[in-house]
């Protein structure tokens, strides 16, 4: 007689989700921003992305082979790190810059702490900050697009590129009159890093992630609202006259808030903690942008709050049911 009473250990219901699936889906949701970046800045941007991704994957594989760990390069996390790092670079960097950044991000940002799930800081941002401190010359030279290239029907001017500052850098230097219109900021017709310029494409990816529940609204919402609020309060010489919309649309705020501050490993676990995390990120971003030495502060703000994540987690621990 066949025994129909099988005894199994729980859990009995399996979700399809896995770390690897989530990583690939986040990478997928970043594709519109990458396409927009390549469209805006030309094929040079595509090379930066490819080099960043390939060198991240290869360095992860080599390090795992070297430390005799299980090789897990196909879980997509190294791919995602390389992709996010490349999105944080200007389009016209020398070819070795994304490679150096990816190797540093994977080796120092991730593997040295024990690999995926154990890193304290977002690896892509660690790579970016390393490049920023090491080769500021390349990291702060941007090529803007000639006007109307975004609309696609007027040919670019006959020289390859002109270098200019980002809108935030212009504000920092006090050149307020050269302010970029909001629509150009939203569509990406401005100087900036590859993945951060086209807000429209970023929002498409972010909405996809939000609807599918891969990220929650807490961090992006509190981050963006806090940045807007503080730049509105203190962004100009007179209180309550700051250009908050400009600050939300410029720089890497949207990319950082939706795709990098929401990294599962380095952000708090509870909803309350995530709101505190987002508030801290927004406050630090606004402080750096308004009073700091750098024009942009998103990467530093997120890294600093990454460091504060264990403390936030400790003080927002949910009450045990019944206690």
């Amino acid at each position, binding site marked *: 007689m066949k025994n129909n009473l099988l005894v199994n250990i729980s859990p009995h219901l399996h979700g399809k989700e896995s770390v690897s699936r989530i990583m690939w889906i986040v990478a997928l949701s970043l594709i519109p921003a990458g396409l927009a970046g390549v469209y805006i800045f030309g094929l040079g941007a595509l090379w930066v992305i490819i080099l960043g991704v390939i060198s991240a994957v290869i360095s992860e594989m080599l390090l795992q082979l070297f430390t005799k760990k299980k090789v897990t390069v196909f879980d997509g996390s190294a791919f995602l790190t390389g992709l996010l790092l490349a999105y944080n670079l200007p389009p016209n960097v*020398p070819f*070795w810059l994304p490679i150096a950044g990816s190797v540093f991000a994977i080796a*120092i940002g991730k593997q*040295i702490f024990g690999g995926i799930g154990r890193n304290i800081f977002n690896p892509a941002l660690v790579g970016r900050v*390393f490049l920023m*401190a*090491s*080769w*500021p010359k390349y990291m702060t030279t941007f090529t803007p697009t000639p006007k109307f290239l975004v609309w696609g029907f007027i040919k670019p001017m006959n020289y390859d590129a002109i270098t200019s500052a980002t809108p935030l850098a212009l504000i920092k230097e006090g050149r307020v009159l050269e302010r970029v219109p909001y629509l150009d900021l939203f569509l990406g017709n401005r100087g900036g890093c590859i993945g951060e310029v086209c807000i429209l494409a970023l929002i498409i990816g972010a909405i996809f992630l939000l609807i599918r529940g891969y990220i929650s609204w807490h961090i992006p919402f509190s981050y963006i609202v806090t940045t807007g609020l503080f730049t509105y309060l203190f962004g100009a010489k007179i209180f309550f006259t700051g250009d908050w919309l400009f600050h939300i649309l410029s720089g890497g705020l949207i990319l950082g808030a939706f795709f990098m501050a929401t990294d599962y490993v380095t952000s708090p676990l509870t909803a309350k903690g995530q709101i505190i995390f987002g508030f801290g990120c927004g406050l630090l971003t606004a402080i750096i942008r308004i009073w700091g030495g750098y024009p942009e502060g998103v990467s530093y703000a997120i890294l600093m709050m990454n460091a504060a994540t264990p403390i936030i987690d400790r003080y927002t621990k949910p009450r045990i049911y019944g206690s």
Partner: protein
Amino acid sequence: MKGLVKEFSKGITVLNPTFGLILGLCPTLAVSTSLFNALGMGVAATFVLVFSNLIISVLRNFIPAKIRLPSFIVIIATFVTICELMMKAYLPRLSVSLGIFIPLIVVNCIIMARAEAFASRNPVLPSIFDGLGMGFGFTLGISIIAVIRELLGSGSIAGFGLLKSRELILVMGLAPGALLTMGLLIALSRLLGITKR
């Protein structure tokens, strides 16, 4: 004699101030930007270590336990002042580039730690050798960090340009580079079993 060699060598390997005890980080991080500075700092600290260990060991039975730390500081500060004035007189360039970090040897925790943990409990000769070993270990540690940082950060070793036209890693000359280099070297020394966890 064997005991003395052991007191000397432990400061270079297992109890290396930089990689094993992880003491005296302030000068290690601050002046390891070039080999020249690192050697100067190492020699100055070694001088102070040896003589403060000697005097504290001689006086160890006369110093009341309650005021031992102030007494150590007075002795250490004496030798630091000698060292500082000598350096100003004979090596003015080094003195300028090390700046405040020479007077700060007074509060360098390697010297305080050796006075408290070793010299105040051991006879004179082992204390001298302990000071020598610790000083050499410190000099070695700070010099290794300095060679790496100077080569990568400013493309030279002890002022001789080697990588002048290359793309240098600017961050290695700054504070994060010092912390990174030191962290990686500590990990390496533990991996190789030179120092212990």
